[in-house]
């Protein structure tokens, strides 16, 4: 079942010897989305071999968390995937809440869904911008995306006091309630978003250059995607209907009516990954509208107790983060610190197939394939 990495054989023509050009793309290459390196071997402009090199941002997050109380590593989870701190918080809270039985109040559950779907909008909209930036678009779509993203970040700031490093979720609820009028402002942003998406789609989805650059580039088959543990929009672009919001129904997702877009064919190229994200944003808006309609006043914190000290047990909590399945695996030994704290980072595992997708493509394609995987190095290197 496992598909091995394809081997590219250098074609020797009539005794003419050609040698490979070895280029080290990164760690300060402008389009590696951080400090990431790809050791690329090129035959002309064709990628013959590609080895990803990680670890430039490694800070041993897991070890740090094992030497801290459970609560104290919550702000550090923000720094994993610094675009989506809310979903990171949720995944950690979900794992910790499995260790001890905590009832989460209704309002907190609703706010969690609202925050995580807003995060999804933030991530997808700016990812599409970065992706088109990698295609060479001088940042215009990216800045349109950031214009809208700012509005959502303002909402995050109003709720939690910080724009990106929100640190908003707690075991059993949320840190604090949202201020007055926040829900109305959110509704305004959510109502305006489809209008922006229309414009965005008009700008990008029919552009002949984007079509010809992305279609048929970086194909990922369904079998390889499943075997390699690819999750999130990338998996759905390869034609697998698997969304943890639907499968696990964590939080209160079973109350909302939403659909999971996935590609029908089994091409799974950059265009599919781009389109699945565009379609997912529309669904997120649907969830947000339902959540904003359904939310009621109430407490936002369950009875977690003063000290978080779970019994000897283990738990694995996973959520559908915008980049894929984000899981936290906690092993508790009965103290206030986790004995083992493991992050299952989606973008790290999605990078498994980078080599498979890039070999035989052009250098320019390698860059956009990396862009379409959607990595954040804070999470990859941890």
């Amino acid at each position, binding site marked *: 079942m496992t598909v091995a990495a394809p081997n590219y054989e250098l074609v020797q023509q009539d005794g003419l010897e050609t040698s490979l050009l070895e280029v080290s793309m990164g760690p300060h290459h402008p389009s590696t989305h951080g400090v990431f390196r790809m050791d690329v071997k090129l035959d002309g402009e064709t990628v013959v071999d590609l080895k990803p090199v990680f670890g430039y941002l490694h800070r041993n997050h897991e070890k740090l968390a094992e030497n*801290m*109380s459970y*609560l*104290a*590593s*919550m*702000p*550090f989870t*923000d720094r994993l995937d610094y675009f989506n701190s809310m979903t990171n918080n949720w995944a950690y809270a979900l794992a910790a809440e499995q260790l001890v039985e905590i009832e989460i109040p209704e309002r907190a559950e609703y706010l969690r869904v609202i925050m995580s779907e807003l995060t999804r909008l933030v991530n997808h909209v700016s990812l599409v911008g970065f992706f088109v930036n990698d295609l060479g678009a001088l940042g*215009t779509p990216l800045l*349109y995306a950031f*214009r809208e993203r*700012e509005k959502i970040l*303002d909402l995050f*700031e*109003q*709720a939690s*006091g*910080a*724009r990106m*490093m929100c*640190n908003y979720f*707690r075991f*059993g*609820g*949320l*840190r*604090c*309630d949202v*201020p*007055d009028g926040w829900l109305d402002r959110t509704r305004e942003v959510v109502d305006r978003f489809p209008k922006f998406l229309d*414009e965005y789609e*008009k*700008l*990008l989805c*029919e*552009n*002949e*250059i*984007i*079509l010809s650059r992305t279609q048929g580039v970086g194909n990922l088959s369904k079998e390889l995607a499943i075997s390699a543990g690819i999750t999130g929009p990338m998996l759905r672009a390869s034609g697998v209907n698997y969304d943890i919001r639907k499968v696990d129904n964590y939080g209160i997702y079973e109350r909302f009516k939403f659909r999971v877009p996935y590609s029908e064919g089994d091409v799974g190229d950059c265009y599919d990954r781009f389109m699945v994200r565009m379609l997912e944003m529309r669904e997120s808006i649907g969830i947000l509208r339902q959540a904003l309609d359904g939310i009621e006043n109430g407490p*936002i*914190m369950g009875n*977690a107790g*003063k*000290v*978080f000290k779970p019994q000897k047990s283990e738990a694995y909590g996973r959520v559908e983060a915008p980049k894929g399945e984000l899981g936290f695996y906690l092993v508790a030994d009965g103290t*206030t610190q986790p004995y083992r704290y493991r992050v299952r980072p989606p973008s790290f595992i999605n990078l498994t197939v980078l080599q498979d997708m890039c070999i035989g493509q052009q250098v320019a394609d390698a860059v956009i394939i990396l862009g379409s995987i959607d990595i954040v190095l804070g999470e990859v290197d941890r």
Partner: protein
Amino acid sequence: MSVLGSGIFKGMAVTLKNFVGSYFDKERLTTNEYAWQANDKLPERAGDYPKEEAEQLSDTTTVTQYSRNFPMLLHDAGEPMDTVRCVACQICERECPPQCIYIEKSTEKKERSGNKAQFYPATFDIDVSVCMSCQICVEVCPFDAIVMNSQFELSTPSRFGELLLRRDDLLKSNDYYYKIHPEEASARDKRIADEKAAKEAKKKAAEAAKKKAAEAKSKSEAEAKAKEEAEAASKPTEPSDTPPAESTATPSTEPPATPTTEPEKEGSAE
């Protein structure tokens, strides 16, 4: 069958719309200029000024009332060290994830205005080069003594000393807190007052229960009195002696009555 190049022309129409729109539509040009850039005044570090001036200056360094950057120590009206709320219990120091707080307890207790004698922090340092504004210290503080500031322009030419905020840099009055986070401050004070009132009511009730055997009928009066007191206590502290010159609507005289629900203190405070 589409017209050749129609996708490109559509895209160009969108960019043209944005180009023109940025001159007329506020939605399309959301950029704001820095407040200090508008009047060509360079920002200074608030710590370089006398306290009152610094508090005025922070008008220009505050973005919105919701932004929260770096902790500060609250004191009530009056001389800072006489009214500081912190009792040097060191919970925040223990809970701080990046370990950027250092506290030394005073050796002797000191009388605070209106309260009984307590310890006070002899040293209270926060290394803002390490602090990540995670607000866990605010969350765990049982005395509402540490809250978030909103100054973000803290860059200094030197790496040592100036990024290590000392106790006197961190001490800020409650008025200042009202100025930068009006909603949060009033909600917090309301909660403190409520708690205090509830406590006193409880105490009164307990006393009343004791006296109940002797004077059963005075109970209702006592409760009414407790309620009155609660109302009196819900008023925030008096303004400082030298109010900021440009503080037009000093919130201390008339607190904004916005009943925001403030979170219960959670987290471990062992």
